């Protein structure tokens, strides 16, 4: 299977959307290469703003550019895109309802060797708490590229989260729609709701479960906010239990959103595959996913537990 990093999906998507839409501008805080923004920068140097290592200035400047009618895409690592600039996003972007696209690479453990200072696992929670913020965590190159293009036509602030490692490409171009869950694999015994890199691990888990005679449905929740409530409730109406899987803290992530929804509408067993109140560390992406309980086998175990609790 072909593999590519999701950040390349962002870079290619940004280039493509900027070709079509003259209002698209890009800002970067000294990570042009890491964010794959070079192609856009080379094609549209006048629409590219290098701000240096000054993320707070970048986010508030993006709010200013949006005020004047531009569609700014900011690019830096997920940690510096959220925690470092939370107040700027809260006041100048979210509360001021600015059409800023906060594009965040190197999210989660799969950043790898740089370690916990850079492996933010709290960003989805931080962003989804902000009123009016749309939060998207695509799962592969194609989906990231398509999301990057489609958020330009969405009026309002967006947090777009993607990652560093090369990852299998398994979604079809044309399958992404903001706020609409994507059915990846049918199943009747359990529904696995997954986001980001963990969608692939969930599909691998579903395959292994099938060999044991367990039928696991996999649904890709790329848009964590607004959540596709109907797709989620329809799925569990059939399977009667769920697993959530994400490269994020259990607190504040996708699992937490789905548990809130189910608790209010139809309380059912849910098992959560997520980092359990811990920072990450240096290591290879696959090693880290395994050590922190986000590997394929962890999804398999969670599915069996969920089914056993029905």
């Amino acid at each position: 299977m072909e593999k590519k990093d999701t950040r390349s999906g962002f870079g290619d998507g940004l280039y493509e959307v900027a070709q079509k839409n003259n209002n698209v501008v890009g800002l970067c805080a000294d990570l042009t290469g890491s964010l794959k923004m070079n192609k856009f920068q080379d094609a549209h140097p006048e629409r590219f703003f290098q701000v240096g290592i000054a993320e707070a200035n970048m986010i508030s400047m993006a709010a200013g550019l949006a005020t004047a009618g531009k569609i700014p895409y900011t690019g830096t690592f997920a940690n510096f895109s959220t925690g470092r600039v939370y107040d700027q996003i809260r006041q100048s972007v979210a509360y001021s309802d600015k059409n800023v696209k906060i594009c965040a690479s190197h999210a989660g453990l799969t950043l790898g060797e740089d370690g916990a200072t850079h492996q933010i696992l709290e960003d989805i929670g931080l962003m989804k708490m902000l009123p009016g913020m749309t939060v998207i965590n695509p799962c592969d190159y194609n989906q990231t590229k398509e999301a990057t293009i489609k958020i330009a036509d969405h009026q309002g602030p967006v947090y777009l989260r993607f990652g560093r490692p090369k990852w299998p490409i398994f979604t079809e171009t044309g399958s992404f729609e903001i706020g609409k869950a994507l059915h990846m694999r049918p199943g009747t015994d359990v529904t696995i709701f997954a986001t980001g890199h963990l969608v692939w691990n969930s599909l691998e888990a579903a395959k292994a479960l099938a060999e044991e005679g367990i039928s696991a449905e996999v649904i890709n929740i790329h848009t964590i906010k607004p959540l596709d409530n109907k797709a989620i409730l329809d799925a569990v109406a059939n399977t009667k239990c769920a697993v959530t899987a994400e490269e994020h803290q259990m607190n504040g992530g996708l699992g937490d959103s789905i548990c809130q929804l189910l608790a209010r509408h139809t309380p059912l067993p849910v098992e959560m595959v997520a980092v359990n109140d811990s920072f990450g560390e240096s290591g290879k992406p696959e090693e880290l996913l395994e050590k922190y309980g986000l590997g394929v086998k962890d999804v398999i175990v969670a599915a069996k537990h969920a089914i056993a609790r029905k």
Partner: protein
Amino acid sequence: MPKSITELENHVAQTRRDIVRMVHGVQSGHPGGSLGCAEFFTVLYQNVLRHNPTDFQMDGKDEDIFILSNGHISPVYYSALAHSGYFPVSELGSFRKLDTRLQGHPTTHEGLPGVRVASGSLGQGLSVAAGVAQAKKLDKDNKLVYVLMGDGELQEGQIWEAIMYAAHKKVDNLIATVDVNGRQIDGDTKDIMGFVELRSKFEAFGWNVISMNGNDLNDVEETLSKAGVLSGNGKPICILMETEMGNGIDFMMGSHKWHGIAPNDEQLESALAQNPSTIGDY
């Protein structure tokens, strides 16, 4: 038609009345810094800005744009916006009350015409203004972007990121005014976290720096006009504006104590007696 100095003086007196009445009416808000900037807002909104108050457009294309960074001086801002026609003057009476568009700190959230970004958490306005200024350059729009910051606000690190950016990128359609009143909540700025002086710092970063007495209408008018002339020359422009916090109301001057407290009934009466009604109260 630019207003004469006499007309501007009347506006300033009315602005002072608005400020103390608004803050008194809800027994909260920030009168000190607001009063110090009454002349600046009056000249800017009555004679300088090329704008369309009766047809407010968020993008402000082909208009001068003003961004208030130190949002706590919202009373003077709201008074200036109302008296230049952005919204009815009568709305000033709703300041800080439930369901108002005139929130404690300015915001776009309730759709108040004239406000383009929320401010209150300090240090962000210069960056926002730089973003608007960059967009104007991209659009070949030759109008200007004005921003006001407090001197205490310059203690925020983000301000210096923006100062660096604006000079490096030659954002020369940006006119940043610093309200140098020398006061902040906990005391005098020189004691809390003094800068020694600001001119050399802005100049070292590559800005064009001019100064004025912010409580002298003639000086404010001349200096703002000079700043406009200096624009477009490859450097952002900084105006160091010396003001007296609480200016125009004797018992509020000479101290940081009136940064964020409201006058009582007697104090209001005294403040209003010092600034007779001119244009008419809301």
